[in-house]
Each structure stands twice: as structure tokens, then as C-alpha cells.
């Protein structure tokens, strides 16, 4: 019984993380119709910034301060996003997708090396928080308490985002821009501002994913590229541009990955792709997708 509970927690842990990454990717696509191949690198950036802030600069600070410093990585990723959107990506919205994918692929290569340049090629960890949090007893087994915090963060982020998009004025503007950019613009919406805000939020989520994961696993080079592929599976299953889809997709991927790991670890990843392929054959635009 407790083994099952642990499996469920693991699935939820993975799902929260995936939602943070894929949700940001999907939000950005939903508003700007651009798939950012460098999105995974912003997740990696969040991880590296938090690892050096929490694990090195303020390593001696009290635990409460360390917890408050975790979002540093998310803020850094958001700042990079806020810088990139107006300077580079904005000019590509009207150009064919080929160029959008290519410019973000170029960005991926640059960001990957930027991280290598700043932090060097070695893994960076901030495991003190993870160790200090200790673990909880579940039946006869124990489970790291920090992982529960990650799960909670994922779900709180989903809740906040939902409230933000469906219950605030800004959310109305965002949805209007996403549905019809020209009409929103004609009604007096400053579309460019909405774009930079949406992009920043998306990057913040990716950065938060990296920041929250780094106490439990080290930040390594290449983690962004790996994460992007998983985020793609999530959005393919859920439907590109849909946040509900990203949440459901993240849960599906989280659950199947946990089953895959415990039953047949070799095909853990292949199973995920297979699910994505089946969903696409049955519902071409994903579970919640809007066909374009």
C-alpha cells in the first residue's frame, strides 16, 4: 500500500515539474503562436541560478532565507525572457514558422554555451535544502518532504495561473489577444505589452521549474535540451496552446512514466512517445487543442 502511495507521489512530482515547463511553453504558443525551442534552456537557467544562489552564495544563511531565495532562478529566467522577446523574437511573429524555429534553435545553442561559460561544465547542486527538509513516514517507508513541496508548488502554480487568466482583467486581455490579435489591438489593447508579459510569465514558469527541482537533483549541462523534448510530449498530448491540456498532459506523462520506470525501465521514454503518437492519431490537435 505505501509503495503505491509513493508511486503516486512520484508521478505527481514529475507531473508538477512537467506542468511548469510545458505550461510556459504552451502559454507562449497560445498567445504568440511561436514555439520556443530555447524554452528548455530557460528551465536550465533557473536551475543554475538557484543552485548558485542557494547552494553557494548564501549557503550559510538560515533555512527560511534559503527557501525564500529559491525563486531567484525563476526571476532570472523571466528577466532573460523579458529581454529576448522585444529585442529578438518579436520580429519573427509575422514570418513563416521555419524562421521562428530556426531563430529559437540558434538561441538554444547560444544559451547552452552561455550556461557553460558562466557555470563551467560541472554539475552544480544545492542539496542542503533537500537534506534539511528530512522525510515523512508513509506506512513503513519514508518519503522526502522536499518532494512534497515541489508537488505543492506545481499545483499552486496551476491554480494561480488559472485564476490569473480567468479571473483578472489582465487575463481577459491576454485571452483576447490570443484569440484575435488584430481585433484586440483595434479595441485599444497594447498588444506588444501583452506579448512581453506573456513571454515573461512563460519563462518565469520554466525558470521556477528549474529552481524548484535543483535542491533535489543537480543542475547539469544539457538538462534543458532533455526537458524540452518531454515538454513537447506533454503539449502534443494536451494540445499546443492549451493550459488545461498542459496540466492533463503533464499528469498523463507523470503517471505513465512512473509505471514505465517500475515495470520496464528501458522503454520508459518510448512509452511516452507512443502515447503521444496514439493521442495524435485519435485526436489530431491533442486532447484540448485548437486546430489551426
Amino acid at each position, binding site marked *: 500500500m505505501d509503495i503505491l502511495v509513493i508511486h503516486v507521489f512520484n508521478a505527481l512530482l514529475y507531473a508538477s515539474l512537467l506542468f511548469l515547463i510545458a505550461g510556459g511553453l504552451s502559454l507562449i504558443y497560445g498567445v504568440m503562436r511561436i*514555439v520556443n*525551442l530555447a524554452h528548455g534552456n530557460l528551465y536550465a537557467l533557473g536551475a543554475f541560478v538557484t543552485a548558485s544562489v542557494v547552494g553557494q552564495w548564501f549557503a550559510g544563511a538560515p533555512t527560511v532565507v534559503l527557501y525564500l531565495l529559491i525563486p531567484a532562478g525563476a526571476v532570472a529566467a523571466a528577466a532573460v525572457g523579458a529581454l529576448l522577446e522585444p529585442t*529578438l523574437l518579436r*520580429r*519573427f511573429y509575422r*514570418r513563416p*514558422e*521555419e*524562421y521562428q*524555429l*530556426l*531563430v529559437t*534553435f*540558434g*538561441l*538554444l*545553442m*547560444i544559451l*547552452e*554555451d*552561455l550556461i*557553460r*561559460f558562466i557555470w563551467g561544465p560541472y554539475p552544480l547542486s544545492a542539496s542542503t535544502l533537500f537534506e534539511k527538509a528530512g522525510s515523512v513516514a508513509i506506512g513503513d517507508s519514508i518519503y522526502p518532504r522536499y518532494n512534497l513541496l515541489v508537488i505543492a508548488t506545481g499545483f499552486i502554480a496551476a491554480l494561480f495561473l488559472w485564476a490569473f487568466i480567468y479571473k483578472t482583467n489582465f487575463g481577459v486581455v491576454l485571452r483576447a489577444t490570443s484569440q484575435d490579435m488584430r481585433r484586440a489591438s483595434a479595441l485599444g489593447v497594447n498588444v506588444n505589452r501583452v506579448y512581453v508579459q506573456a513571454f515573461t510569465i512563460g519563462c518565469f514558469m520554466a525558470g521556477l521549474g528549474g529552481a524548484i527541482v535543483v535542491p533535489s537533483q543537480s543542475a547539469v549541462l544539457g538538462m534543458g*535540451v532533455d526537458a524540452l*523534448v518531454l515538454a*513537447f*510530449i506533454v*503539449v*502534443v498530448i494536451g494540445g*499546443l496552446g492549451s493550459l488545461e491540456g498542459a496540466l492533463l498532459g503533464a499528469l498523463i506523462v507523470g503517471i505513465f512514466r512512473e509505471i514505465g520506470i517500475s515495470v520496464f*525501465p*528501458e*522503454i*520508459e*521514454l*518510448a512509452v511516452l*512517445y*507512443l502515447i*503521444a*503518437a496514439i493521442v*495524435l*492519431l485519435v485526436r*489530431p490537435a491533442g486532447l484540448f487543442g485548437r486546430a*489551426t
Partner: protein
Amino acid sequence: MSTVAVQLEVRSSIKALAVGAVLSGLLVVLPFGIDPYQTILLSYGLVMAIAALGHNLLLGYTGLLSFGHSAFFGVGAYAVAFMVKYLHVQSMELFMMGALAASLITALLFGFVCVRYTRIFFSILTLALSQVLWSLAYKFYWVTGGSDGLRVPTPKLLGVSLPSGEDKINFLAHSYYYYVLVLFLACTFVMWVIVNSPFGKALQAIRDNETRARFVGIQIRRYRLVAFLVSGVFTGIAGALWVPLNGLTTPDILYWPFSGEIVFMSVLGGFHNFTGPITGAIVFNYLKTYAVGFTVYWQAFMGVILVVLVVALPQGIVGTAIQLTAWARKRFFR
């Protein structure tokens, strides 16, 4: 088509053939003038050019951007490695046939799913599917060698094995270079015929206006599937030719950033031109080799080139050269 148009087309074909013949002649004599290392580098470029040509049949002629061509390249390469490891085959011709069959089957499976989509969905789907193969190559290490990869020894070319005393560098810089060159020229010729055939014109019609193409009676999905198959097979052949050159195949060539490199090549040369991907692949290969030797941050260097290219020179090298010559002709020779 009017007679004038036919004459123009014939004249431009003859011109293209003449230029092609001169360049091929240059490629034939080049190994006598440059050192073996340069020749091997050029072989890499020619091999990648075959892959880029295949990729561009989809990107430039059918209007589909595949971000998953590492799958076909990797399948070609791994097919050769498996034949060496499990069937103890040594003949390069058998390798080519094996790689052709394997990449054809892969392209058929992937194509069946992917050609239902266009634009961004096609790109994401090809990317995701190619990663299935990557994860399999990575995880089934007892079959594929995992991240260590599989070693491929020097093959027999046309049934002739390497004389025992001959040095591998010498083999790669001479016999193997010509082997690659012949296949490169053959592939280029075949691709030229394909894109100028009625089939190629139909693909371009689909690219330019899908609805009209359908009204004319083109079966869009079937045409896209055939283009996908041809494209995959070309890239698979490139993968098979690449393995003996590299001596080793690892899951890296199945990983999606490698697909990105293939796309990079097409765009660097200019995907609106037939020769763009060839130029792009050869130039990319030199750029990457020298950037890797020059700095550990070669990836950022290539990234900056890509961003600048996409922002400032979307026509690529060949496209920009054509525009420049047209401009110069107008400016100075009227």
C-alpha cells in the same frame, strides 16, 4: 508551355549541367592538391550534403520543416553498425542496401503519422518521433552499446578489402573519398531529376497553394508521403556513408539537436535553391570543424551565425549570391 519557355528551360538545364560538370571535375582532382585531412573533411561535407539535399526536398520543395531527420541519419548509421556486429558483413554495397531498406521502413512508419500535419505540428511531430529512436538507442545498451555506441571497421569497397599495409587515413582520403564522391554525384543527379519531374512540380504546387493543388487533382497526402520517403532514404544513405568515415556511431546522431544541424545546413545555403543545401552542408562542416578547434564555445558561435543568418540573410549563401549577381548585372552591365 510555349516554345520559348521550353527553349529557356533547356538552355538553363544545359547551363546547370555545364557548371555541374566543371564543379564535379574540380572535386575529382582536388585530393591531389590538398592534404589528406582536408580531403576527409570534404568527404564529411559531401556526406552531409546528401542528407541536406534529402531534407530540402521536404523543406524547400514541399514546404514541410522536419526537425526529426536525425532519425533517418541515425537509422542508416545504426543499420550499418548492426550489420557489422551481428551479421559480420564487410561489404560497403551491402551496407548501403541495408541502410536504404532500414531508412525506407522508418520513413514509411513516421511518414504515415507525420504527413497528416503541416507547419509547426509537422515539425514537433517529426522531432518527437525521432526521439523514440534516440531513447531506444540510448537505453538498450546491450544491443546498441548505449552512449558508447558501436564501432564500425573499414569496409570493403566493391568487394576489395583494404590491403593489410595500407593506412586508414590514406584509405579515407583516397578510395573512400571517391566512393563518397560518386554516390554524392549520383544522389545529386537523382534529386535534380526528381525536383524537375512532374512529381517535383506537383510538390512545389502543394507548397505554394495546397487548396489549388487539390483542385487540380493532386493527391496531397500521397505526394507528401512519397516526398517524405525519398527524403528519409537520402538522409539514411548519408548516415550509412558517414559511419565508416567516423568509425563509430553513437546516439548523439539520433538526438534532436543533430536534426537542428541538418536544418541549419539547408538554411545556411538557402533552401529556396537546389544547390543551397549542398553549399550549406559543406560550409557548415568547415565552420563547425574550425569553430570546435578554435573555442569550446563553438555552439554559441554557430548559434550567433544562425540567428544573424535568419535575421539578416534569410536567403542563405546561394540565395544571397544570386541576388547580388542579379543586382550587379543590373547595375553595371546594362
